């Protein structure tokens, strides 16, 4: 049956789309939290927070869609991945709780404001770290027997996963700093430009390490990339990544405002594509494919109808909301 073969592919693309949007959109507002403690002044912190206050919970909704989509379309993957990464997932959730409420509480607090500054910064950083550990555990593979996770509670805690975690923190911070270049001006903008250059170097380092480490420790992934003629077809991925990185470095040196943010998004999408190439067609590497993990076709179709009809609408009103809050942000912007 063609349909039963094709549906999981479509759903894998839908979920990849939701995760990519999540990583980019919540990435920049988590990045702002990561940069928060290093901001030049208190007033700049207000500006940083204001730049994402009207949009952050829409951004985070893509994470919920990723979770709900995975649950609906690939239930086996959902239960295996979340069982295997129980501790980092819980840490991520608690961290997201703390940084989320900081948006509400910080501006209402006076004496205890520093507490919500800490909650916002630590929550954002911890959430990014935890997501990086989950990502690493996913790439590295999860031990499954009869559709159930059979490893221990701390299997996610490995040096490789630590690398992906630090890489993701640097990546989010880069997104956050280039967002600030676009949305702010003056001293904060200059500061963001300087930080972005350092962060870009860090991101490239981590991307390189993870890109080399992965094929070295996984033969199948090495074969995917380096076998002929794949090497030829896939070579644009690292080449374009390098080009974008170069353009971004130069864009940060010149007075470009929007370009660095867009180029960073490009870098994220290419890294994402690289992961997709390495891991296709597994819903839970190294053994459970998207077809193994798929829900019944009727359920996938029922929800796909909603996705096809509603996602364009969601993108439209999300874009409208970003457009309403366009322009540079100051400390007293949203009155």
């Amino acid at each position, binding site marked *: 049956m063609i349909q039963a073969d094709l549906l999981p592919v479509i759903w894998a693309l839908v979920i990849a789309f939701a995760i990519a949007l999540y990583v980019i959109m919540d990435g920049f507002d988590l990045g702002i939290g990561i940069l928060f403690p290093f901001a030049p002044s208190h007033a700049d912190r207000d500006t940083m927070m204001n730049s994402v206050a009207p949009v952050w919970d*829409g951004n985070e909704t893509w994470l919920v869609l990723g979770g709900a989509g995975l*649950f609906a379309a690939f239930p086996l993957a959902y239960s295996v*991945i*979340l069982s295997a990464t129980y501790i980092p997932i819980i840490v991520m959730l608690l961290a*997201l709780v703390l940084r989320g*409420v900081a948006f509400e509480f*910080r501006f*209402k607090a006076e004496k205890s404001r520093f507490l919500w500054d800490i909650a916002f910064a630590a929550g954002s950083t911890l959430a990014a770290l935890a997501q990086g550990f989950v990502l690493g555990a996913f790439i590295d593979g999860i031990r499954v027997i009869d559709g159930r996770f*059979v490893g221990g509670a701390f299997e996610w805690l490995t040096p490789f996963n630590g690398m992906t975690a630090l890489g993701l923190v640097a990546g989010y911070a880069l997104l956050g700093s280039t967002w600030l270049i676009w949305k702010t001006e003056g001293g904060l903008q200059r500061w963001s430009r300087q930080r972005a250059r350092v962060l870009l170097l860090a991101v490239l380092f981590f991307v390189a390490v993870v890109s080399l480490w992965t094929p070295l420790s996984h033969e199948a992934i090495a074969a995917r990339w380096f076998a002929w003629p794949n090497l030829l077809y896939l070579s644009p991925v690292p080449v374009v990544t390098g080009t974008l990185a170069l353009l971004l470095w130069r864009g940060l040196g010149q007075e470009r405002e929007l370009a660095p943010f867009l180029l960073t998004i490009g870098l994220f999408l290419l890294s994402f594509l690289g992961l997709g190439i390495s891991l296709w067609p597994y819903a839970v590497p190294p053994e459970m494919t998207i077809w193994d993990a798929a829900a019944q076709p009727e359920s996938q179709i029922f929800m796909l109808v909603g996705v096809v009809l509603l996602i364009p609408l969601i993108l439209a009103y999300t874009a409208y909301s970003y457009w309403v809050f366009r322009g540079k942000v100051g400390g007293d912007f949203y009155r």
Partner: protein
Amino acid sequence: MDLDAVLLARIQFAFTIGFHILFPTLTIGLASFLLLAEIRWLRTGDGEWKSLYRFWSKLFALAFGMGVVSGVVLSYQLGTNWGGFSTATSNVIGPLLGYEVLTAFFLEAGFLGIMLFGWNRVPRGVHLLATAMVALGTLLSAFWVLAANSWMHTPQGHTLRDGIFYVVDFQAVIFNPSFPYRFAHMAVASYLTTALVVAAVSAAMILRGRRERAVRYGLAYGLVLAALLAPVQVVIGDLHGLNVKQHQPIKVAAMEGLWETTRGAPLVLFAWPDREAETNRYAIEIPKAASLILTHDPDGEVVGLRSVPPGDRPNVPLVFFAFRLMIGLGVIMLTVSWIGSWLLWRGTLLERRGFLRLLAWTGPSGLVAVLAGWVVAEAGRQPWVVQGLLRTADAVSPVTAGPIAASLAAFIVVYLGLLVAFLAYAGKLVARGPQAEGDTPEPKLQMAGRS
């Protein structure tokens, strides 16, 4: 999977979902209340309605933020705590929660920014639309999540093969037998709870000497809405109870504390249900009243707990007392809102400081009643997670007790801290009260954000 881990997973989920439900209850009600206030403002041009809106929208934002963050936790806890459940039921539950995200969460999040920060950036019509979309989103969210929950109580529209549920008919799944009752009961509960909270907070402000119209509007609208909604809730609750009796007789037996299947069953006002002896101690009963309520016939038959083995019964005292707590609070809400509306009609409400104080203290009773009601519904379904088909013990994830206990402790510490902060900042907003809203440009505040 040892039993401790099952119990810990249940306690953790009950705690996180119980904490969460308080905030959607408030935001479902407040979003519609804000829509009402904005329509009144646009209709009458009375700036007091706008200042009422701005005041309650700040409390709405606080509650909404708490609801969002505690809700994200739940969408992943289905996997972390209930891996067996999610594997077995994902074909059914997954699409319903997916539709909740697509139709409700994005709608709320997409328009909330405009609703809170967009006053000077969009035309009035667009702002009204944003409020309406947020209100619609909160209701749609309740629609889907209650469809999913109701299916767990009265499953239909599926087949069960090798321990996995497969959907045959989505319409039957969504509109399962208990869904209309549960959805109506929860929607009205949200409106009633919020109406009373609005009235209570307004009463507290009046007691502190705030007498501007924005506060008095809140008091009057909250009281009258509560007085209208409370009897509606009694009728819906009764219909819901009849539905439960038809589909989950053992849950009703636990609610009523009825051990033997009886014709002409008495209504137990108070007792101590003894699970070992399978009887009630210290019972105070009204003869035949339970049969009359549940079958509308004084000699009607009501199924007792002993008709199933002990392993298939819920925790009887828990369900029994939670049910009484809910009913008792319902009676209090009805009485207070009717007395208040009568005083309002007589024109003496503002002078009755004793009553205003009572009203202020009654404010949280809807929230407690909602929690008690959910304990009745969910604990009453045990030992099943999907009634009659999937046991809770088979629904947990392959995670050991250690990590669950540690994360439970972390959730308790973090959530209690958040609750304290929420109450402190909400209290601060209430102490400051509504601010006059003229058509003149507002003075710039030092800080903006969601303030």
